[in-house]
C-alpha cells in the first residue's frame, strides 16, 4: 500500500464528501501501478453508505477530526470520545486502514508546522493504538499549514485548522 493518500483522495472525490473538501485531489498519478479499488455505491438506492466505506466511517463515528490548542498536541477528553468511536469502527472492519492527517493553523512558521502537524497526527495515532488498533493499520502525514479547512485569519478559523483528520483507505 504505497499510495494511501492518492487512494484516499480519489475516494473522497468520488463520494464528494463535504468533510473531505480540503483533501488533495491533484496528486501525481504513478504510471501503471495504482489500482484503486473504489468503494462507490453503484446503485443509487437510498440504502445508506456501503458498510466499511469512507462514507460509512463518517456516518458511524462521532467525528473524523480531533482539534488542538495553539502549539499543543495532547488528546483531551472530547478527543478521546471521538477517537474511541473511530477505534470501534476500525474494530468492526479489521481489514480497513487509515491515514491520519496532521494540520496546523497559519500562525506558525512553515517548517515548524510540518513538525507540529506530525506530532498531532502521531498523538491521535498513539491514542488509537492504546485502544487496541494495530499500528500497522495507521499511517500519518503532516500537511503543516498547507491545507487549511477554515479560510479566515481569526481565532475561530485557527481553532478549526489545528486538527488531525482520520481518512479511511482501501
Amino acid at each position: 500500500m504505497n499510495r494511501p493518500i492518492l487512494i484516499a483522495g480519489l475516494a473522497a472525490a468520488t463520494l464528494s464528501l463535504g468533510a473531505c473538501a480540503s483533501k488533495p485531489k491533484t496528486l501525481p498519478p504513478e504510471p501503471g501501478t495504482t489500482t484503486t479499488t473504489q468503494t462507490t455505491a453503484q446503485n443509487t438506492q437510498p440504502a445508506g453508505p456501503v458498510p466499511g466505506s469512507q462514507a460509512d466511517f463518517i456516518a458511524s463515528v462521532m467525528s473524523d477530526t480531533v482539534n488542538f490548542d495553539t502549539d499543543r498536541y495532547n488528546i483531551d477528553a472530547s478527543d478521546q470520545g471521538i477517537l474511541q468511536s473511530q477505534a470501534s469502527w476500525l474494530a468492526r472492519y479489521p481489514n480497513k486502514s487509515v491515514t491520519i492527517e496532521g494540520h496546523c493553523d497559519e500562525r506558525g512558521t512553515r517548517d515548524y508546522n510540518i513538525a507540529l502537524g506530525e506530532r498531532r497526527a502521531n498523538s491521535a495515532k498513539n491514542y488509537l493504538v492504546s485502544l487496541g488498533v494495530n499500528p500497522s493499520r495507521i499511517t500519518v502525514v503532516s500537511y503543516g499549514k498547507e491545507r487549511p479547512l477554515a479560510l479566515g485569519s481569526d481565532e475561530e478559523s485557527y481553532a478549526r485548522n489545528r486538527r488531525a483528520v482520520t481518512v479511511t483507505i482501501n
Partner: protein
Amino acid sequence: MKMRFLVLAAGLVSAPALVAAQQTTLPSSTAAQAPADEGLTGSVSDENEWQDLGIAIPAFPTNASVATAAEGGNTEALGRNVARVVFNDLRNNGLFKPVGPDQLPAVAFPQVAAPTFDTWRGRSAEMLVQGFVKANDDGKLTVGCYLYDVALGSELARQGYVVKPEEWRRAAHKCADMVYSRLSGESPFFDSKIAYIAETGPKDRRRKQLAIMDSDGANHRFITNGQATALTPRYSPDYSRIVYLSYLNGAPRIYVYNIGTGQQTLVTQSANPTFAPRWSPDGRWILYSMAIAGNTDIYRVPATGGQSTRLTDSPGIDVGGSYSPDGSKIVFESDRSGSQQLYVMDADGSNQKRISFFGGRAATPEWSPRGDQIAFTHIGGNFRIAVTDPYGKGMRFLTDSWQDEAPTWSPNGRIVQFFRTERGSGKTGIWQVDLTGRNERKLNTPVDGSDPAWGPVLP
C-alpha cells in the same frame, strides 16, 4: 594598467547551469586614476552620505551597431538596456540615487574612456558610470564598465566582461556590483539568483511550484509543474542543484533537483517525513529534519547520499538549521524549552546552547554569509524579521507587518529577503529589506511567492 582575467575553477565550468562572465582587459581612460585604497567606506547599517550620491548612468554606446541575439536586437539598443539594468540594480535597493539612460543625453563611443566632466558637473552628478557594448567576431559581446568621480575628474574603477548574448544581463549586474562595491566598501551581490516557491490558487488549495529567477526578477523559470506541493528550496552553493521539499507521492520528503539534467533524487530513503533541508557552505552536506513517531530532530547527510548522522536528540521539535559561513557551527530552532527559540551548536551536534532570550518566540534562523548576524522570524503577536549577533546580543527588528517569515541573506550579508503573508486572503509575496530596516520593497514575481532562497554571487 593591470590585466585582469578571471580564471575559472574546473568544477564550476562543468556545472551545466553556470555561465561564467569572463572578465577582460579594458582600454584605460584619459581621466586620472584615483588611488585604489581611498574608497568610500560605510555600511548600510549607517545613514552615510554616500547613499544620497547622485550617479549618472547614460546609455552604453557601441563602436558599431550590429545585430545581436541579446535584448534590443542590435548592440546600440542593447547598450541602452545594459545601462537600464545597472540603473535599476542601484536604484531598487535604496542605496543610491541614480539617474538612468532614459533621463540622460547619449554619450559618444570615444567619450566612454574620456568623459566630459564639465557637462556632468553641470548636471550635479557626483558619480558617473559609463560603458560600452561591442560585438566580437565569435558572436560574444564585450561590455565595458567605468566608474568616475565627477568632482575629482578621476577614474575610480573599470571592468570588462565577455558574455554570450543571452547572458547580457550578467554583464550589467557585474557592472552594478563593481559600482556598488567601490562606493560602499561592501561585497557585491547583484549577479546572483534566487530560488523560491511560486504560489497560485485559493487559500485551501494552493498550488506551490519551485521556481528560479535572477536577483532582479529577470530570467524567471518554473522548475516544477505544481502537481506536487513544493516547499523550502535552497540553491547549492555552486548553483548546480536545488534541495527542496516535495509532497511527490503524497508524503513530505526532501529531493535534490539537478538544474542541468532536470533529474531529481530522493536525499534519504526513509519511511519517515524529511523536511527543512539546508546546504553546508561547501556544498558537501545537507542538513535536514526528520520526524520519528512525532519527534523531530536534525540530521546531516552527504549531498551525494549515504549515511545520515543525527545531530540533536531532544524530545522537542528541533528543526531547520543554518551553518556559519566557515561551516564550524549551526544555528537552529528548537521548542525544547516550551516554545520555539534559537540555539547554536558545533557542526557535530555538540555544545548546544540557547541564544535567544528576547521574549516571544524565535524561528527560522539563517546565518549571514558574513558571519556577523543571524536573521530570524520573531513571533510575538505579529511575525517580524529580526537580526541578532551569533551570541543573541543586539537584537533588532527589520520589519513590522502581520506575518513576515523565512529570511534569506543576500550574498554580501547586507540585505534580507523574506516572504510576507496577507491577513485573510493568504496571498504571499517576496520582499526584501536592508539592515537599516528602512529600505523595504516587494519583488516583482509573475505570481505570488514565498520561501525565497538567495544564492551566492556568480563567478
